């Protein structure tokens, strides 16, 4: 066991030492400073009383505390139920391949391997505890930071032990001929029986416990509070309450009083796990192999799970023509089945009529307004988040940049080709949203009704600008990849932790700044074009025409950037980054 402790301790120390050593590189140091400042100002100064200035915190009244505890206990119950319902494999402890190769053939008892596994999981639990404490304190939960942290630790550790114990129990059931489906039916039957008891009891409780109107929120709260504090439900929730109670403790004394039963429950879980005599080795070896494969794929830049099913190409790729289109074709396949032209046509032909039917059947303007306004919101959101989520470009292909470099293509062709897929996907999605907004946003508050011509004019204008906006938005992160490839390493060797957060923050700020700068000439161009239309009061024509000017300036900017990035790609020396 000492050897296992040594392995765990030394692995932790070495990992931290290499992270500290990495801070010698400016890119990690700057990222580390930015990340540290972010975490301090956003989280830490609200925890453990740091910084002197405390945010207003919320505290629960006894009734509310009871309700919140019941909600937390119910959430825990659902998580535990899922652990019994969903998994279908045999018990497998997560070890690395190196651990499997060293520890499994070594004269180490199964119990010691479980201890090692529990010890390892404590590191992840402690980090999660810290993170959750930061989050909950950030958003104003009252009480001491230490009791909250300890509360989280109790919840997470007990859950961890329960998951392990349930995986052993599931394996034992399988060994005794009880299949996954039989087990699931049994668990569901038990749940159904208990729900029936609660329902029957609540019926007999009379009017005092009848389900209130769903819009009456205070009554609904009171109903749930009573349902979980009287009758049979509290008995079911009791063990779960024991686990969550320390988190909600007021002060150290109450915390220590509540901690006792929670720790006792945790000890029972520990004994359950440690006494289970279940063979987990074979399944663990298989799991470690799968994880190693996934990590290898991640190191080679493929963060998505390895595809198991071939995808139909989005269109037929002819063998001649612009080679940049081949990159679009390849990246659309990489993006998945959802992004084929056929799916988009089907989507348009089915969803739009369905929305019409819904809007007319509800007969209310509110529904149309909600639909139209929602589409506009998603459109704006997609401009901000879309380029970060859709990464079928250099960010995806950076690890195979050596393959791209052997292609007989000009640098700008490769850059352009790489940008096409996410631009096309985003554009199609946003055009769809524009169509929805144009159809349903028939009035605006403080403006009143919007004529179809006005809506069409604005929608057309936005639709013209959107592709170029997407292109410019996608050029920025791709330029960052080519200019600072070391910052975009993927997989386990890639940056983690505070310094990675800092790097992302710096990039995000840089992207916003560059985007704003890119918009200035385009906006100026569009304004100049729009001026005569203001004079003639021909706004309906002015908006699309000015949008064309806006898009044209953005296109020129994008072309300049693509050619410049092409030159960088041609001189790109990945060996210098290694």
């Amino acid at each position: 066991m000492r050897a296992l402790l040594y392995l765990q301790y030394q692995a932790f120390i070495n990992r931290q030492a290499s992270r500290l050593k990495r801070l010698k590189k400016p890119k990690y140091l700057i990222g580390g400073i930015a990340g540290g400042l972010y975490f301090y100002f956003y989280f830490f100064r609200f925890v453990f009383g740091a910084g002197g200035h405390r945010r207003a915190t919320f505290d629960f009244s006894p009734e509310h505390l009871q309700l919140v505890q019941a909600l937390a206990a119910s959430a825990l119950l659902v998580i535990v139920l899922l652990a019994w319902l969903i998994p279908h494999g045999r018990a497998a402890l997560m070890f690395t391949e190196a651990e499997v190769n060293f520890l499994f053939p070594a004269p180490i008892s199964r119990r010691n391997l479980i201890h090692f596994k529990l010890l390892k999981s404590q590191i992840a639990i402690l980090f999660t505890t810290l993170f959750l404490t930061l989050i909950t304190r950030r958003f104003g939960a009252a009480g001491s930071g230490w009791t909250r942290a300890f509360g989280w630790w109790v919840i997470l550790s007990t859950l961890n032990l329960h998951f392990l114990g349930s995986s052993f129990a599931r394996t034992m059931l399988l060994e005794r001929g009880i299949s996954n489906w039989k087990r699931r039916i049994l668990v569901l039957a038990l749940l159904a029986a208990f729900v029936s008891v609660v329902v029957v009891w609540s019926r007999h409780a009379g009017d005092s416990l009848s389900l209130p109107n769903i819009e009456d929120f205070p009554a609904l709260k009171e109903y749930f509070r009573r349902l979980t504090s009287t009758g049979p439900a509290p008995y079911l929730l009791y063990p779960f309450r024991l686990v969550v109670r320390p988190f909600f403790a007021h002060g150290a004394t109450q915390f220590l009083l509540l901690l006792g039963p929670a720790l006792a429950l945790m000890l029972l879980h520990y004994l359950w796990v440690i006494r289970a005599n279940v063979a987990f080795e074979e399944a663990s070896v298989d799991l470690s192999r799968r994880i190693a494969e996934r990590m290898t794929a991640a190191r080679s830049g493929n963060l998505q799970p390895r595809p198991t099913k071939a995808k139909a190409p989005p269109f037929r790729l002819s063998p001649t023509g612009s080679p940049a289109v081949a990159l679009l074709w390849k990246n659309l396949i990489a993006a998945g089945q959802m992004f084929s032209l056929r799916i988009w046509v089907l989507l348009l032909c089915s969803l739009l009529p369905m929305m019409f039917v819904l809007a007319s059947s509800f007969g209310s303007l509110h529904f149309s307004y909600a639909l139209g306004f929602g589409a506009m919101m998603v459109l704006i959101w997609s401009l901000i988040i879309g380029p970060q989520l859709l990464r079928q470009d250099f960010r995806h292909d950076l690890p195979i940049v050596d393959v791209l470099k052997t292609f007989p293509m000009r640098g700008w062709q490769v850059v352009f080709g790489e940008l096409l897929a996410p631009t096309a996907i985003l554009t199609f999605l946003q055009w769809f949203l524009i169509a929805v907004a144009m159809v349903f946003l028939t009035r605006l508050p403080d403006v009143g009704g919007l004529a179809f011509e006005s809506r069409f004019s604005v929608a057309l204008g936005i639709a013209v600008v959107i592709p170029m906006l997407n292109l410019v938005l996608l050029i920025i992160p791709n330029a960052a990849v080519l200019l600072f490839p070391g910052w975009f390493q993927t997989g386990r060797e890639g940056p983690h932790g505070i310094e990675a957060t800092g790097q992302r923050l710096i990039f995000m700020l840089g992207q916003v700044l560059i985007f704003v700068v890119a918009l200035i000439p385009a906006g100026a161009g569009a304004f100049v074009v729009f001026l005569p239309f203001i004079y003639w009061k021909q706004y309906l024509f002015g908006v699309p025409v000015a949008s064309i000017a806006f898009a044209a300036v953005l296109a020129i900017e994008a072309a300049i950037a693509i050619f410049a990035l092409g030159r960088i790609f041609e001189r790109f020396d990945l060996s210098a980054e290694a």
Partner: protein
Amino acid sequence: MIQVEGLTKLYGEFAAVTDLSFAVQPGEVLGLVGPNGAGKTTTLRCLSGIIPPTRGVIRICGSALAEDPISAKRQLAFFSDEPRLFDYLTLDQHLAFTARIYQVANYRDIARPLLEELEISDKINLLPGELSRGMKQKLAIACGLLHSPKVIFFDEPLTGLDPIGIRRMKNSILKRAREGAAIIISSHLLHLLEEVCSHVLIVKGGRKVIDGRLEDVRHKFAEESVDANLEEVFFRATGEPESKP
């Protein structure tokens, strides 16, 4: 066909390749030999345009790689030791993609016999994840040969292949050479190089130790009257201690 003059590649202060010059003519197979860290892979990566050389001129079929990379790259194929494939493209989609990149209008006519020769014609709808390592290597070869390259670079081409695969690979290399391709093979398997190479280039510490026709090199390093085999040549040329069993 392949002309290299004064190729130098520096990684910061470290010189991976220094002032390397050699040429490979059509039909010749050059074995690139050297101990670990000699600069073999760096040389091949420079020749295939993956990394830019610090100094020197590389010509592929008369086109300077630095000035006219498109023409030069159209003529070459590079096969790394680990097949580099796209996880999400099937075998057939790999071929369609490669054809478009290299503008091979009649790629179906070329692909059919190629796939049959490599014995993967029944796997066209499979993803790389569904193929064995040898099959992946074959797919990479099919993609690389689709545009009928006149210059071919192999970096450890036999890694992970079974004896049948090794035999087929050797035959395939010799076939391409007979058809007029200029080929460079980097490998530590000296017996393989001895079987397929017409020429040899030995490098150590990024510098050329010797190059020339295999027979001439063997003869030069022969002790007494018998020609040395390539393994003996390697040890004698590089000055590495030869530990005999």
